[in-house]
């Protein structure tokens, strides 16, 4: 294929779009709608995931020491050397009493007697998902009396994060098929309107690929246009929602639009190109048999 033929194809594709304005508009509109659905699903899924993960990463394990435990440095070393542990924090029994006191609104909780609390450590995992495994290991260290962590909460969060993934994936795959069907039908309609053109081209001596290329490029251009429009709408919409949600951000953390930008843009562009190209190829194919 000559360079000038490639240029001819891209010129033809652009002409095809503008000389069939209504059909092009219909195709772009359908692709935009499809990608809006995907983008919306993606934003909801990734925010739910983010909440789950954030909650998980705030998890900690508390280890209470025995009365005759080795001194602080030794215990700290033993705990830090467990794989998956990010940091440990020593809480002396005096500090423990103070924290407990604050909780009950009393500063002199154990002032008349002996402080019954043991020394303890707070252990923070690198990944929230590992909390349970780390807790089991800590229990086996000598000098540790008792290990406390939100066992059920951890299990719930792990399940939640995984579930979000699975449900999101299922929803997206289901819509891929539904949406693909609609998009292909629309593009098929636009190509159907031009089936005579395809026949004429073939009768004048065009090869299949000579006919197909401009249509394929046209589909890709329309797909990219649809993707760009949907990206614009999604980010505009998301930014507005984000501004509203930020005031609740402490209880309901939300990904800033900047944090989701690249992934989503790439995802939507790829989807747009895929829809446009596949739609064109499938539609042109049936009219090439001349």
């Amino acid at each position, binding site marked *: 294929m*000559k360079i000038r033929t490639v240029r001819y194809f891209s010129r033809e594709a652009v*002409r095809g779009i503008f000389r069939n304005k209504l059909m092009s508009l219909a195709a772009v509109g359908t692709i935009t709608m499809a990608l809006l659905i995907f983008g919306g699903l993606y934003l909801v899924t990734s925010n739910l995931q983010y909440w789950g993960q954030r909650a998980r990463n705030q998890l900690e394990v508390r280890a209470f020491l025995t009365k005759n435990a080795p001194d602080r440095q030794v215990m700290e070393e033993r705990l830090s050397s467990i794989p998956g542990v990010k940091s440990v924090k020593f809480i002396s029994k005096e500090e423990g009493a103070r924290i407990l006191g604050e909780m009950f609104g009393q500063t002199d909780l154990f002032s008349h007697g002996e402080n019954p609390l043991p020394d303890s450590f707070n252990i923070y995992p690198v990944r929230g998902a590992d909390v349970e495994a780390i807790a089991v290991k800590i229990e086996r260290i000598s000098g540790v009396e008792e290990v406390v962590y939100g066992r059920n909460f951890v299990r719930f969060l792990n399940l939640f994060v995984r579930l979000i993934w699975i449900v999101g994936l299922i929803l997206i795959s289901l819509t891929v098929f539904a949406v693909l069907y609609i998009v292909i039908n629309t593009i098929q309609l636009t190509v159907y309107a031009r089936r005579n053109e395809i026949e004429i081209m073939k*009768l004048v*001596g*065009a*090869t299949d690929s000579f006919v197909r290329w401009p249509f394929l490029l046209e589909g890709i251009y329309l797909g990219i246009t649809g993707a760009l429009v949907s990206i614009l709408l999604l980010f505009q919409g998301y930014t507005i929602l984000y501004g509203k949600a930020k005031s609740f951000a402490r209880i309901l953390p939300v990904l800033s639009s900047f944090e989701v930008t690249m992934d989503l843009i790439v995802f939507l562009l790829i989807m747009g190109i895929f829809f446009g190209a596949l739609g064109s190829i499938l539609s042109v194919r049936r009219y090439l048999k001349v």
Partner: protein
Amino acid sequence: MITTRNLTKRFSNGVVALQDFSLHIDKGEFVFLVGPSGAGKSSFINLVIRKELPTSGLLKVGNMDVALLKKNEIPYFRRNIGVIFQDFKLLPNKTVYENISFALEVIEADTREIKIRVNYVLDLVGLTHKRNEFPSELSGGEQQRVSLARAIVNRPHLLLADEPTGNLDPETSWGIMELLKEINKRGTTVVMATHNKDIVDRLRRRVVAIENGRIIRDELKGGYSLED
């Protein structure tokens, strides 16, 4: 150039468009196909360009058995044949210029050569001033001349003209006939289906008369009907 032996075409709806059709057309000949509407003239042309496949019998174009052409050979085969279609078959979304140049774009000719050749044939058919119009903005006769220009721009070995004067006034018709004669003189085989008695009678070329898909007369220097 074209050889048929017992060629038969039966469409899927049962209509028999050609039967027992045996004909030989030499390289460089000028042949009129005449016969009433529905006789099978266009069907013959569609078989020659492999738009349709023969039901039975032999059809050779050049030295190619058309029925044996592979799918990917068909485009290259068609590039040697220029066709003026009865219904013009112009691309509605392309201008006059682009319609004609399309026949050269498919063979990946050079830009400069395309420009020279398209301008040349535009001038030949007298449509230079309509080069940027779309087919829908042209009269029937003008569309027909665009179809003619596209058919000859590639300098084909074989020119199939299906009613090329069907929509033209007598004067333009004769202009077109002069053109076809000239192209034929330069070596292109011309097969022309027509109802134009006047032209056939005055040109006195080989006439193949078809009726109900059968050849009923094949006459060198013939007239439109037997009595002429």
